[in-house]
């Protein structure tokens, strides 16, 4: 009687209705500042406005996703109970996408309605383990997790080991509290494959991290808040995300993103249509729209993450040639070959690894 | 608040109030006729304030009734009672100015135009220009007058005054007394007045009650109580009395013969509360006259001899202490009318009195002399 039921849903058990035919509406939840805005009038969003103008679909755009875990906490009750979250489209990172897909909370898209995706999705993002058909979660933006340093306060940094041991960096280092990014880099630095590792290998890497924490080398684990600190120089070096660091280096060339030879982590934030969303058709239209290279370039020019759309680089030339040449937005083969996607975890593994990791990072 | 019908007499029936095991008011019964001026006197802590608070409805009686006319109001909320109080501690509202303090009662009864009435009241208590001040900006006496005005303005059926003039100078007090009396007679309010100013009680009250340790010790017209007190407590509480421990031998004719310290005295039978056994022979200090020697004592008067040990000038009169042969000190007041000559301290003198001014009270066998200036015994515990 007491206790909770499983949160698992199935397509048959939780059928959603699509009212797109009659309602030209779309509720889109995204991360803050993950959408291009007009430099002159910041209340305008050129690409999104373009979509609205083109389709007549009224988009309610909400920047209410700040953190994958937090957002999961916000919507899990509804989704577990097969209730509406009042959102038609939401953007979540790979592993969270994987978790939700695993739980049966996400609707499958109609490939026919998203031809641009089929045509333009970067090959390296095709057929990921949690979405082998590319019809459940479609990358919005991708990014890299690697090293970064501020050349004003420290000398160049090349490897993860340097970050964790160099005495001059002591207390001036941060790592990401996102387990997959930090542990992926550490696994790589140990010569293991983040996309495929054993528990012993994980523990090895975690030990290395723990030493760095205990010695005071690592000052803290962060979300996005490392960026201002890095810019200020309070943090000399860190594990960080490419998009942020590009922003910083455009201001101060001394701030540099480093892709260590041992590998960088590639992640995507993916568009998904949750169960009980009633405007799947409209969502598909929007997904398809953003996979037009020109639109993708407009977006990428603003947000500076890795653009998952083929052909956007060419479009970018027209907007900002310098950005078009930036490998952190349009990565070259060399970089792509170094990048790894973290192994897909089942629920038990996830709990085990997160538990161990959290223990080390203090919580 | 119902003022349509006259309230009727205020009656307290077996009123008792206990704080824990301490009995502050003890089975008190009395009647205050409607429209009369009733003064409550008593030692500090004897239960006066507590009694008033029960009448006002601010203290729940432990037992007993408060009746106004035929209505038992003991369970009525304070604001439903046609009763107002001048609080001993003033209890002025600190957040309201003087004007609003005085206007409070009227406003609560929904009266709109209060200005005239309030100004008239302020003027009555001689605080015309103080309406805008806060209570904290007034002197003690000024605050007391505000408390007075705040209650008076409501012209209730019963007005309870808890030492309402105690903080005023004599002159102002006399003026306020006259005002109070005027309002009382004009409007026919029943006044229950607690005061420590005996002259005030005497001149203003129709009836005086002397309270002692939660009970009424004597009740009556002021002059009656003063002239012929019922107990030693009253005799010494209201004014002063020289009380000589004596033995009464019973009524002989219309007199009672008593022996005190070997001397023989007599008292009219009508002025004796006891006529046999241990008694107090009482004479008021102002009824004693001082002369140099026994042969100056007029006929029909009785006297004792002693030495003047103290003389103190108090303006209107001079107060002498006369130490009798057996050691008791008698108090003698001589009016400074300019006629009598001063008696020097240390000289021998004779105090005499008219037996009709003496009175007899019963006395516990253990009691000895209780002349006026004895201070070594606590008041509350007396007789």
């Amino acid at each position: 009687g007491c206790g909770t039921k499983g949160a698992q849903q199935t397509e048959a058990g939780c059928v959603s209705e699509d009212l797109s035919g009659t309602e030209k509406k779309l509720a889109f939840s995204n991360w803050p500042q993950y959408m291009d805005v007009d430099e002159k009038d910041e209340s305008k969003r050129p690409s999104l406005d373009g979509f609205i103008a083109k389709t007549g679909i009224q988009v309610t755009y909400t920047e209410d996703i700040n953190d994958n875990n937090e957002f999961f906490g916000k919507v899990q009750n509804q989704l577990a109970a097969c209730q509406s979250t009042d959102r038609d489209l939401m953007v979540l990172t790979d592993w969270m996408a994987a978790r939700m897909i695993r739980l049966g909370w996400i609707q499958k898209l109609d490939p026919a309605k998203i031809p641009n995706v089929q045509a333009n999705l970067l090959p390296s993002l095709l057929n990921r383990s949690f979405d082998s058909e590319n019809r459940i979660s479609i990358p919005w933006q991708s990014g890299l997790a690697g090293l970064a340093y501020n050349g004003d306060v420290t000398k160049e940094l090349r490897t993860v080991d340097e970050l964790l041991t160099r005495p001059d960096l002591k207390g001036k280092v941060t790592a990401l509290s996102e387990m997959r990014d930090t542990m992926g880099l550490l696994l790589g630095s140990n010569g293991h494959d983040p996309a495929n590792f054993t528990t012993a290998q994980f523990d090895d890497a975690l030990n290395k991290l723990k030493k760095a924490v205990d010695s005071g080398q690592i000052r803290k684990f962060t979300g996005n808040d490392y960026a201002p600190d890095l810019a200020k120089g309070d943090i000399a070096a860190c594990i960080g995300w490419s998009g942020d660091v590009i922003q910083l280096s455009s201001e101060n060339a001394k701030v540099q993103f480093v892709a260590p030879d041992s590998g960088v982590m590639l992640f995507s934030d993916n568009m998904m249509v949750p169960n009980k969303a009633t405007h799947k058709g409209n969502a598909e239209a929007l997904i398809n729209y953003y996979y037009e290279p020109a639109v993708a370039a407009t977006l990428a020019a603003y947000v500076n993450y890795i653009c998952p759309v083929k052909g956007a680089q060419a479009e970018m030339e027209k907007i900002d040639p310098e950005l078009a040449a930036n490998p952190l937005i349009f990565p070259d083969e060399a970089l792509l070959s170094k990048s790894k996607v973290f192994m897909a975890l089942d629920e038990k593994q996830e709990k085990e690894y997160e538990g161990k990791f959290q223990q080390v990072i203090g919580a | 608040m119902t003022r349509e019908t006259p309230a009727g007499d205020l009656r307290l029936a077996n009123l008792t109030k206990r704080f824990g095991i301490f009995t502050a008011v003890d089975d008190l019964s009395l009647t205050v006729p409607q429209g009369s001026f009733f003064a409550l006197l008593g030692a500090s802590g004897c239960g006066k304030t507590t009694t008033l608070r029960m009448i006002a409805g601010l203290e729940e009686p432990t037992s007993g009734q408060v009746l106004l006319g035929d209505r038992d109001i003991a369970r009525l909320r304070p604001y439903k009672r046609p009763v107002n109080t001048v609080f001993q501690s003033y209890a002025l509202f600190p957040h309201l100015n003087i004007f609003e303090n005085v206007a409070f009662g009227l406003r609560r009864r929904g009266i709109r135009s209060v200005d005239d009435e309030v100004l008239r009241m302020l003027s009555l208590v001689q605080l015309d220009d103080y309406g805008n001040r806060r209570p904290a900006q007034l002197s003690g006496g000024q605050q007391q007058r505000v408390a007075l005005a705040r209650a008076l303005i409501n012209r209730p059926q019963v007005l309870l005054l808890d030492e309402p003039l105690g903080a005023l100078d004599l002159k102002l007090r006399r003026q306020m007394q006259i005002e109070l009396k005027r309002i009382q007679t004009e409007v026919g309010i029943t006044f229950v007045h607690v005061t420590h100013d005996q002259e005030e009680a005497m001149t203003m009250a129709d009836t005086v009650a002397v309270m002692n340790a939660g009970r009424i010790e004597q009740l009556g017209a002021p002059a009656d109580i003063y002239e012929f007190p019922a107990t030693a407590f009253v005799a010494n509480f209201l004014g002063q009395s020289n009380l000589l421990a004596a033995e009464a031998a019973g009524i002989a004719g219309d007199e009672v013969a008593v022996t005190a310290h070997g001397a023989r005295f007599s008292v009219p039978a009508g002025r004796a509360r006891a006529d046999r056994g241990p008694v107090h022979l009482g004479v008021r200090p102002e009824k004693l006259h001082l002369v140099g020697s026994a042969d100056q004592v007029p006929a029909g008067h009785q006297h004792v001899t002693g030495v003047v040990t103290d003389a103190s000038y108090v303006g209107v009169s001079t107060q002498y202490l006369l130490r009798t042969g057996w050691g008791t000190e008698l108090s003698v007041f001589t009016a400074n009318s300019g006629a009598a000559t001063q008696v020097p301290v240390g000289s021998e003198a004779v105090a005499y009195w008219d037996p009709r001014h003496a009175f007899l009270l019963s006395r516990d066998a253990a009691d000895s002399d209780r002349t006026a200036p004895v201070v070594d015994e606590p008041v509350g515990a007396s007789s």
Partner: protein
Amino acid sequence: MRVSRWLADRWVMIVALLVLGYLALPILVVAGLSFNRPSSRLSYDFNEFTLDNWRQPCATSDMCDAVVRSVQIGFIATVVATVLGTLMAFALVRHRFRGRSGINVLIFLPMATPELVMGTSLLALFVSAGVPLGFWTIVIAHVMFCVSFVVVTVKARLAGMDRRLEEAAMDLYASEWQTFRRITLPLVLPGIVAAALLAFSLSFDDFIITNFNAGTTVTFPMYVWGAAQRGIPPQVNVIGTAMLAIALLLVGLSSLRGRRSRRANLLIGPGQGPQARRPS
């Protein structure tokens, strides 16, 4: 000698001003940064003076909506929580009744509950009851966690208050309600105002509980938190500074007016006039 005397007379005020300075320090930084043109979205350092942020305080999409919404929520939640909490405080201080300690636990527990726990478990309740999330669920949550703070604050003021003044009022024909309205309330007002200020700031500043029960509604702290993921827009500093400036302006004006009109003097408590004591 002179100096030490001067200090002895004023050190409390001096310390108080220093503490206020401590409280104001970060706000000064915020105010300064509101005139900053940041070098990049991720920078939180002073770069270049500009009035742009003040000229277009709402330039960032949705931010001003969020501010307005937060003010509305804060206002409603403050009023409701203050009323409910004040009633409870009166019951607890003025009455002896069965179940007092149970009520006390019910009041302390919410303060002792981690915000996250409160947020998620309330969310579970709303979801299982099928309540649509949004403005009103936020209000409900805010009232819930503000009430305890109000109760405790008002109780602190109410405890040991001089009952004689209320007795005097009742003696002067004021019914229970009128006594409350005319005497008790003004005398307790500083406590209630303090409680309301607490409630408003709790509500206006809350992120965690709000975040869980907001559905797709965005409040100002949620906006800031979200924005911070990609760098704080400088207008956030404008809002912080402007809120403060407006509050100070309103209060400043009212206290200036309060010198003439008695009614405006809301926050200034009556203190206690020189009455003899004997609270019973």
